[in-house]
């Protein structure tokens, strides 16, 4: 059955979009048809990781929400070419980077219920095995909706005091929404910490299942969203950790 997986964080800058894009790649390498939808309409960015220039975005999620096109028409095939390891496909539904479009959304808002049928139609039209939702940070109506309809939710946080309480709130809210699978991801962990200790600390703090710890990586920082980390560094420990996360999210 097609799965909807949301990648969310309480605060920005946790690496959520990077994780989403790399998960998409891993699922595609596994032969799956993957949809990625950038619902961070206020600050879109995931398209950069797939090498999609703003000027290449013909149709976006914004066009769908304003009734200008069907949602599948806003899909861009961003499957890396020339790479024999990708047996599946990745279709990205980006958000518009045009300032006026963003301002419009902020001013007018949009009907969230459009997304309900939108997601259904997208899954059907593109025969998706997985739909990844890259959410806007924080808890609002849009992000609550994405979380609520997901089969699995990855809550991404940094080991930072500013993230702890908000992550706890998100965890409890997700539980209240009966999300079938909730996975805690601790990103950008300094290597000076013991990963096993960190894992245990957060699992006990949030009373959650096995947490996934992604260590800070200089290579990731240097790559700076110019590409997909799991393609550039196929045998890196962070790639292995992402693979493990992908497996957990799929169940």
């Amino acid at each position, binding site marked *: 059955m097609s799965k909807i997986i949301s990648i969310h964080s309480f605060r920005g800058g946790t690496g959520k979009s990077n994780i989403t894009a790399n998960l998409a790649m891993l699922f595609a390498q596994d032969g799956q048809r993957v949809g990625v939808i950038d619902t961070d309409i206020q600050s879109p960015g995931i398209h950069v990781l797939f090498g999609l220039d703003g000027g290449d975005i013909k149709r976006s999620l914004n066009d769908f929400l304003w009734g200008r096109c069907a949602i599948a028409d806003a899909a861009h095939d961003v499957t890396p070419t020339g790479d024999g390891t990708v047996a599946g496909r990745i279709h990205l539904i980006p958000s518009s980077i045009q300032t006026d479009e963003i301002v419009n959304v902020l001013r007018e808002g949009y009907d969230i219920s459009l997304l309900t049928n939108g997601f*259904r139609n997208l899954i059907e039209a593109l025969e998706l095995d997985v739909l990844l939702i890259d959410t806007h940070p924080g808890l609002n109506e849009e992000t609550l909706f994405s979380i609520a309809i997901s089969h699995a939710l990855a809550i991404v946080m940094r080991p930072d005091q500013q993230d702890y309480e908000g992550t706890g709130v998100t965890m409890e809210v997700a539980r209240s929404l*009966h999300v079938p699978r909730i996975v805690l991801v601790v990103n950008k962990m300094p290597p000076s910490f013991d990963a096993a200790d960190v894992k245990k600390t957060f699992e006990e703090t949030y009373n959650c299942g096995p947490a996934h710890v992604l260590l800070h990586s200089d290579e990731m920082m240097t790559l700076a969203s110019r590409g997909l980390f799991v393609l550039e560094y196929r045998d890196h420990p962070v790639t292995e950790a992402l693979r493990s996360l992908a497996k957990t999210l799929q169940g």
Partner: protein
Amino acid sequence: MTTKPAHVLVVDDHPTNRLKMSMAVQNLGHAARAVEDGRQALALLRLERHDLVLLDLLMPELDGYQVLQAMKQDAELRNIPVIVISSVDEMDSVVKAIELGAEDYLPKTFDPVLLRARVNACLEKKRLRDLEVEYLAQVAELTRAAAAVEAEDFDPGSLDLATLGTRGDELGVLARVFERMAREIYARQAHLKKRVIELEVQIDEARQERQVRRITGTTYFQDLRGRAGQFRETLQSDEADRSAAVPSNGRRSIG
């Protein structure tokens, strides 16, 4: 050719021979110690540093062959060169001595010029061998230090820079650069460890609970919960419809 005076051990059971050989060694500018049998020779070799042994073959109690065998089996003694000096000039004895580890052979009535040549050749070989052993030992030390850095277990004080770091060759350069880098890594790790002893997660649970209630207590949230459940059921139903619509060729129809 070696210039530094060497320490030579003369081993012969005849006092005259001991005297003659000791004087010949001293004339070459080296220091000589003399013992009368193999047992004393081995004891002294283990006690004091010697660079060369002039060894008689036929001696009572422990003969020259037995001394050679014992030296070969001892890791501390096996690299000390031995010139056997004997009246036994049969080829078999010479071959046996060399097979047991002797570097060279001289007859008892030796020519001083030949003695000089062979002594110097042996001492030069030993000097080069000592340099090689020292080099390998220092490479091993640096390799161990590198492994310790990798295991995050390196103690900067453990590297013997007094010897290693003063070498004028590439190994010396490597040792000095390595030590500097290792100290920097060590200092950085120690600094980080001091700052981060334990990961502390501090959450105001009461405030967290209030925030959760604020969100989950809304009508929107209650409504969303219902709609989310319906949505998942609808997706499931969509999937079932699609599976039923899949023709025998296994390809889904796109609606």
